């Protein structure tokens, strides 16, 4: 299922922040995780992911570090900053409110089940 661009623009950052809240990840890993854990709903290509990561970095919500990985190659790893954690908490509350509102309107039913993206 393809998500509308406007909706993705709002969901993408919080989805990435949520993934990074569990630990550092590199770019390809993020793409894979998003695809797998949302069953392709929030699938992102590089054309979306890397500009998004650069924006989050510009806002100070994530930080990156290039280092040699276990396989001997250099990779850039992204981790959540304190500011990013605060933002994620705020975004979760907002998404919860939106979800509740949508549920009460009958637009959506049940709760989000994807473990890593579930609102705490």
């Amino acid at each position, binding site marked *: 299922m393809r998500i509308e661009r406007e909706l993705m623009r709002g969901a993408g950052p919080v989805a990435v922040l949520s993934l990074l809240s569990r630990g550092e990840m590199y*770019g390809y890993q993020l793409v894979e995780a998003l695809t797998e854990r949302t069953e392709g709903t929030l699938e992102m290509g*590089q054309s979306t992911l*890397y500009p998004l990561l*650069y924006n989050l*970095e510009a806002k100070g919500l994530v930080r990156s570090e290039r280092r040699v990985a276990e*396989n001997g190659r250099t990779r850039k790893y992204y981790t959540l900053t304190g500011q990013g954690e605060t933002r994620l908490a705020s975004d979760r509350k907002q998404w919860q409110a939106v979800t509740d509102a949508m549920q009460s309107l009958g637009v959506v039913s049940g709760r989000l089940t994807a473990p890593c993206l579930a609102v705490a």
Partner: protein
Amino acid sequence: MSENSKTNSRPNFFWRLRTTPLRDLARGRLSGSLDVNAVIAASGLPEELALLVQRVARRTRLARVERVEVAHDLLDHFRDGLAEGVSAPTLIEAFGHERITARLIRRSMWRKRSLFARNTRQVVRAGFLCFGVLIVCYLLLAIKHRNREIRIAVDYVAILNAPTEASEPEDRSWPEIREAITTMRGLVGSPLDESMSVDQMLSKIAEASMSESSSPWIDAELEPPALSVNGEVLDATVVDQFFVAAEPALERLRAAANRPLLGFSLSPRGLEDLADRRFFGEESQNLESVAREDEGGFQDSILMLEFPYFGSVRLAARLLAADARRAVIEEDGPRMVADITAMLGLAEQTRTPSIMIAQLVGMSMERLAFTVVLDSIAAFPGNIDDPSLVALADLIRGLDDQRLRLVVADERRFFLDIAQRVYTDDGQGGGSLSLGSPVVEMLGVPSEDLRPEFFDTGAGEFLLGPLVAELTIGRADAVRLWMNTMDAVEEQASRPPWEIDLATLGLIDEIPRESMKDDLMLRIRYFPITLIIPATEGLVFAGAAVRMERDLVLTVLELEATRRRNGVWPHSLDELKFAAGGELARDPFDGSTVRYQYRDGRPLLYILGPDRDDDEGRGMASSGPGSGGWKDLQRDGLAGSSKHWGIGQGSVDSEPDGDIAVWAAGRK
């Protein structure tokens, strides 16, 4: 070079230097780590993926260090994908749209930059944008400027020559003047020294015939010619013999002066009449070569005209003046009147064409004629018979204000001719200044700081031409300013001296001319008006002085007529009747009638002087030759007796005390 070859080509030293971070350079390493192509090539990715990364990185148009960062991220991503077993085509398909990706990456990377860097970038970008707009505007201006052309539509030289061309040969005086002077040249004998030309010798004879006692003028006695000119003494017999032999030539001059016009044919190519070339000693001049030498835009213009005849007609007038003086001594009144008539006739002819220099030359001849009359009446009043005295008064009275007025109609044409050669023509009287070589060569440049050679080049004209055209006033404004100045000159010259307002002549577009000297922008704006506009202050006073001197002559003639009626000089100017017309001369310093003193049987006419205080005719103590005082009081031959007649300027505080005598009878 293809993208592929770029990727695989070995970078040279300078490229590596350019792509090495300062940090590495400081450590003495020429790493070339900012070389995006090298980074991509070193990744070992399949070619299609490498090229994709290369294209995206290039399209981000980011700084080199940022492009390398983006390339690293994308390369890592693809390597991870390949390691996971995803094929290159699948990775490319999942990548998304290159151009959009590059744009999104560019924007997000901008956001990563510091606030200072972002603002600086915006400022620089805005600066470049403005500069680009300026360049485009200037190029449009340059094209517009180049598309406007100079069009020489009017042959003003032909207009100046029209009266001569339309006249019959027998109506022209110049050929007669030329022949008369040629005849007299043959009568002068040997010049005093080898360096002296024949005309100079003629002039010497005329001067020696007029000179007498030096100033103070009022004590002068009319004596035989001093025959001394600047310490050189002429033989009286030579002078006498000359004038006797020259009588036919002088008669020819008198006849010439009675013709309707001078009829000298003006040409920007020089003297075209063979007789003129022979007369002025230019037989060898090749007109064709002269024309070819000047390829500029002025070769047919009024600006190139020369007026060699001014010197000749002035010489003719001086010879006639000398003869008039001799006629008075010889008690030959009719001849004296004929000479004065001829001088005034030549002066009138010389005033056409009505350019300023011609007006000045004509006026100087008129004032010389007046001075001869004043001197003659002062020294030998009885030598002029009654009919001649009446004829003289009628002659002078006939010189009304209209006849003596300053006319600068052809001076207006002078500028119109320049304008059509230096300004483009929009067909409606407008246009802009064109900085072609003729302008620079003929008129100069607005500032000495600007090198004329630069304007002279095509590139210089293209680059600066439109700018100068926009910075300087247009053709319509330039013509308007010139015409306003000419209007002011004619208007001021028609006033009596005490009413002349010099302020109007010192303004260009309400801006004082003096202030323009120190302001480069004003000099550029009013170029070339400021360079060629003439100084007209002296001209307007000269115009006024001629009329006042005429009135002085009429006053003196009336004094002499009264003396003849009563047997003595009048005790007061109230005794003057002016039955035949005319009026008392006026004092140029205050506008009242000229002052008169009858003292010890001698009449004296005087004006107040710059202190504007009546000292009952007492001359200024500091005046006189070599005194260094009021130098205008010095007498310089006959013409000096009333030369300060038109002076109405001066301040009370700074000028010497005393009056200025303008006429007095030398004998009791």
